């Protein structure tokens, strides 16, 4: 093989075929990694849902939810709306991104990030506005657990959004300007895979947010 066709990376050489192989493996990893991460997160949230329904059906000491205490619904509605907004913005942005609207994606992305951070702040602040003590009932306990997990979800989602957006600013050239889907740069391919995985995760966050909102504020 001609050394001229080989790229040197990290002290070893790669043929074009090997580069192609590694790139595909990398993009496959982003794809399957994104799905596996959602799988892991599902088990985490399912544990919380299990705790909720287990304590609800046990109703030990008639203390599942005395007097039907509910966390402040105004906060709940706002946080939920912001989460769904972020989720929809991420999905819409991805749709535009695929059509070549990088700027549309970025605007939608920053909007989603803003909504997510606002939801995060409100979610933390809600803890100061609770009308019940954490240990006063099963509902109160699971609600505190939900708040902590939701904070983690929003932090993860916002971090993923922010890093993707920040990177898009640095990679304007590589992701191919107005037509990113045509860019064959390895960076662009990798970036698109990352955006797709991130959007998928945000779709998951929106759906699970709906479920838990219903569980804690509506039921």
């Amino acid at each position: 093989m001609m050394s001229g066709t080989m790229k040197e990376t990290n002290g070893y050489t790669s043929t074009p075929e090997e580069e192609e192989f590694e790139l595909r493996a990398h993009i496959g990893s982003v794809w399957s990694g994104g799905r596996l991460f959602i799988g892991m997160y599902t088990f985490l949230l399912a544990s919380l849902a299990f705790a909720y329904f287990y304590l609800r059906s046990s109703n030990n000491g008639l203390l599942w939810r005395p007097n039907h205490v509910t966390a402040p619904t105004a906060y709940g509605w706002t946080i939920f709306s912001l989460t769904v907004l972020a989720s929809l913005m991420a999905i819409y942005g991805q749709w535009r991104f695929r059509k070549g609207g990088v700027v549309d994606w970025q605007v939608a992305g920053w909007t989603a990030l803003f909504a997510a951070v606002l939801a995060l702040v409100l979610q933390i602040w809600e803890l100061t506005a609770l009308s019940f003590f954490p240990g006063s009932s099963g509902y109160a306990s699971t609600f505190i657990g939900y708040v902590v997990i939701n904070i983690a979800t929003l932090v993860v989602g916002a971090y993923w959004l922010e890093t993707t957006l920040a990177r898009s600013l640095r990679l304007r050239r590589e992701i191919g300007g107005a037509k990113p889907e045509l860019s064959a740069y390895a960076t662009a391919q990798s970036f698109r895979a990352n955006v797709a995985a991130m959007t998928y995760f945000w779709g998951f966050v929106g759906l699970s947010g709906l479920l838990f909102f219903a569980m804690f504020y509506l039921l």
Partner: protein
Amino acid sequence: MNETHHLRRMTTIWVVLSVAADLLFWFLVGPHVPPGRMTDTAKANQFDFNVLFVIALPVLIGVWIYLAYAITVWSAKRGGPDPVGGESARTNRTAQVAWITITSVVVIFLAGFGTVALVADHGSGGGEGPNPVWSPAGAIQAETAALAGRGTWSPNSNQVLPVQVIGQQWKFTYRYPTFGGFESTQLILPVDTTIAFNVTSLDVIHSFWAYQLSVKADANPQINDVAYTKTTQTGQFTVRCSELCGIWHGSMYNYGNVVPQQKFLQWAQSTEAANAANTKNLPPFAWTYVPDANGASGGYYPDGTATPYSTVETYGAKQPAS
């Protein structure tokens, strides 16, 4: 040596050893296998164990014979023929199908056998929770009557005797609802009687293990865990806590006694009378009690309005805030 030769040899050794071991076990060891035969559940569970063991022994012996055979006959040191690779060494449909079929049949038989034993023996002495699905005749009526304070028990009446087991750190105490609900640190039972153990806890999880009776039921706070057995022999038995419950878990044991029915009645009536002064300090008999999670004078959770307590009867008065 051809193929059938190896297998035939191994099979012969296996059959001889398995039959011998099974017979020896069944007749020599079997009758002495714990937990003995003090109750009908103990006897049934001992039978179960022995059946499992009789099935397990040939499995163990089979694999051991195979390993020993391989080590001695197919060792490189013996310089036997070179192994043959290729497709025939990679798969063997007959062997694989046979293996999967045999293990599946054995396993499904065991599950079925266990289920039949479990149902036929009213839960096999294990804790069935507050709503037992396999109750002996008369048990539900006896329990209902006991809770209403109308429970009775007399010798030769074939009545079920409910006994409450209260786990607390670090001792079991016992209440007899059919005898005025007195509480005692002693566990005395009549022989030839179906006992309904109602196990609950005042704090952390314990596990009531009456070893020779073959009864084991976890004691959870606010849960009435019911387990049944029928005593068939008199004698002493050991009660141990079988779920780690803290520092004195290891010394959380006592000895109980199965006694003739008349003797039990005497004991129960005299204890009821002797403890009368204290029994009136106890809360009314109930299947579970809501202990105060806080303990004496200032506990883990803040008191008062922040943590409303259940309206359910508490065991002992509510503790004051510190």
